[in-house]
């Protein structure tokens, strides 16, 4: 049986070889964050999977030179651009593009079948938050989601390809909307 452990392959950067990763591994290390972002952005697990796969394939195959410090923002930018392109195509050829759609497996009925109050509440709260997020425009939603991924304002501006001031103003408006939508949870 294969056992885990560092692979001793040559490295691209100075430093301890055992801790270094290949470029492909470095890109793939962002996969879960990209998937979480894509899911919240699209509101759909299958769409998120397609977006992340396409983003990673393009990034690994790309000849674009990206500073290592900017790699994360660049990856999220690629994914967001793919998402926007996809949405434009969907609007031209509408099949099912309900912006308030929530994954069928997460319909409230599923959660209400259980009998543990705390579980139910957690799931219902999550659904309310997801619904509120999906009501935001794609640009505003993306900024909130990048905040949740721990992006700095500069990284968010880079990922969104817009000035810092735009990030600030969109975030302010998005948060104001979310505050109003989630006001029912105020203590």
């Amino acid at each position: 049986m294969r056992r885990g452990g560092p692979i001793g392959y040559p490295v691209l950067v100075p430093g301890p070889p055992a801790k270094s990763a290949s470029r492909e591994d470095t890109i793939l290390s962002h996969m879960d964050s990209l998937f979480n972002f894509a899911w919240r952005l699209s509101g759909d697990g299958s769409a998120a999977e397609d977006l992340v796969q396409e983003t990673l394939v393009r990034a690994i195959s790309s000849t674009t030179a990206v500073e290592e410090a900017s790699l994360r923002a660049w990856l999220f930018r690629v994914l967001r651009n793919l998402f926007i392109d996809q949405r434009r195509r969907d609007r031209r050829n509408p099949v099912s593009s309900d912006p308030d759609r929530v994954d069928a497996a997460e319909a409230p009925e599923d959660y209400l079948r259980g009998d543990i109050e705390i579980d139910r509440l957690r799931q219902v709260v999550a659904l309310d938050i997801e619904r509120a997020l999906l009501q935001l425009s794609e640009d505003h939603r993306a900024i909130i989601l990048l905040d949740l991924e721990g992006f700095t304002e500069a990284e968010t501006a880079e990922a969104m390809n817009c000035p810092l001031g735009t990030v600030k103003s969109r975030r302010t408006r998005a948060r104001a909307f979310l505050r109003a939508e989630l006001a029912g949870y105020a203590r």
Partner: protein
Amino acid sequence: MTPECIELREQMTELSRGALAPKERASLLAHVATCEDCAAALERETLTGELLESLPRRFAPADLAARVRARTAGAAKPLPVKKSRTGLAVVFAAAASVLGVAVAIFLLGPSAPTAQPMVVEAVNDHLRVLYATSPLEVAASDQHQVKPWFTGKVDFAPVLRFGGNDDYPLIGGAVALFVDRKAALFVFKRRLHEITLLTFRADSLPWPRSYNSTLGDVPALVTTRNGFHVILWQADGLGYVLTSDLAEPELRQLGALIVGKSDAHAR
């Protein structure tokens, strides 16, 4: 609302994100201390931040990385990540080694398991069982009583091949939340040690891309967190996590019984 209120409210998001400069932070907090409306607004802003942070994370399917690698396997390997301070010689050497890297990855798989969120969740669920006054919703030593109890309470049929014995008696079960989904929680005992077994749908969770052990012939990840031993594995579309402060060999022995390898020679 004064002009000062309007100006300061724009900073509240920054404050709740911990991104406000100390001077502005002090100024905002001083104002909030004297303005009830702004204090209420800050509370709402903080709550909004907490709600957003509470959203459960979504994890990429376990096989997604393999699919990406398969799609890019034949592609040329340019170097999109700039290494501005790296010597050219190192870059050339690295480029020459790309083929070797690809072979190593193909043969060995990526090295680091990424199941940390699952391990953390398993230990947290185990602690909840230890600390709760009534952790079990069905208390019974017979799996034929415990398993049917889950019908309609979780969205899958728990598979439990081992229903307890004198060494590892089954104590009972409960419904738990594991990462973003419901799980069937079974509790076993070994002397004074409690052992929790969580079983849940295995899809869309951050399963490790390589395992460091086996239970019988089932690949398993054996790890330790905060003094608790944790064993993770998958079978028939379901995920399983065993957690306990029991000695690791004994926990492996129970794991082998649960996967149906009763010879208990888990490696």
